[in-house]
């Protein structure tokens, strides 16, 4: 009886720890009492005049741990590599929730099938070209490679605009 009780207690503790681990890893901020929706979500505002590049991060309302990491790494890569272009307004970083009705059109516009980092160049309100940086999901495990990939793509866009 004692052995059985000990084994069951062991399994129960393991189950509890694992469940808590799942909740933590999945970054369930709502369960942890955090904000329901990330505050830093822009609206679909118009692009100002002149040729400029917009680096979008598209997400949904539920944010997974890897999705947050991709957003943070991408934003950091853009800020660290292109501070001057950001200040000059040649480059802009935008975070958008595609579940908001005003932003749903981006799913079709950029063929979004998951959370994505997209670069787009604009001349005034006219879009010239765009690219989905789909390798971010493969490279997210290596921050150095991830940063180089995003910065190279942004650099190519800035140089060829």
């Amino acid at each position, binding site marked *: 009886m004692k*052995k059985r009780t000990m084994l069951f207690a062991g399994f129960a503790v393991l189950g509890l720890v694992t469940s808590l681990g799942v909740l933590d890893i*999945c970054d369930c901020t709502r369960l942890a009492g955090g904000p329901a*929706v990330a505050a830093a979500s822009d609206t679909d505002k118009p692009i100002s005049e002149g040729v400029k590049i917009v680096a979008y991060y598209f997400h949904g*309302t539920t944010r*997974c741990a890897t999705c947050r990491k991709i957003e943070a790494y991408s934003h950091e890569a853009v800020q660290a590599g292109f501070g001057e272009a950001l200040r000059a307004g040649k480059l802009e970083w935008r975070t958008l929730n595609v579940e908001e009705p005003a932003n749903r059109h981006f799913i079709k516009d950029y063929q*979004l*099938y998951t959370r994505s980092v997209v670069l787009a160049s604009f001349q005034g309100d006219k879009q010239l070209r765009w690219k989905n940086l789909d390798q971010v999901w*493969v490279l997210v*495990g290596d921050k150095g490679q991830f940063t180089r990939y995003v910065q190279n793509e942004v650099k190519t866009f800035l140089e060829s605009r």
Partner: protein
Amino acid sequence: MDSLFLALGSALWLGVLTSISPCPLATNIAAISFLSRHVDRPWRTFVLGLLYTVGRILSYVAVGLIVMVSLVSIPSLSLGLQTWMNRLIGPLLVIIGLFLLNVLKLNIPALGFGPGGRIERLANRGGYLGAALLGAAFALSFCPVSAALFFGSLVPLALAHQSGTAMFSVYGVGTAVPVLGFATVLAFSSHWLTKAMRVTASVERWAKAITGVVFLVIGIYYIWMYTFSPATF
């Protein structure tokens, strides 16, 4: 030929990458718990794991071929599966959990449900069909990571090599290997431990109950995350 092997290796790696990412962790835990509950017959875990793998493969091949023949657009299929399968998985896990805990019992002898009925005999044989169906359902419940790697990396690879079925099958194996390995190791170590302590039969009963609780907890978590959260996909 070399490039095909390289592509198949990449497909396998993409599968493993999908499986070890945090996003499908909850369903992986449910699968490990379901597969490794046969403490008295650990080899059954391995066979169930193989069937779980087959279930995953069938789902990925089906979705991949639908995309390759352009029956539906990738965004609508991907976002549709992410929305609806994750909403279905929650209640499904809760129902299976309640059955495993013997809270829910069906008594329809005409359909084989009930004490000594066809369904109970099938379930007692080890739930082989259940393992395959569980694998198929879990594979279809795409999350952001699996959707990105499947639709963004694997589908272009399959299109480039015109070998969809092989690529999707190898990817399916990759997504199941960590679960299969972990469940088998867990079943064998539990078997040896409980045999040494001479409590195998009682632990078997507890393992089934624990599996039920795990399904219930993860099911409630899925229902909360994908149905009752303000808005999700």
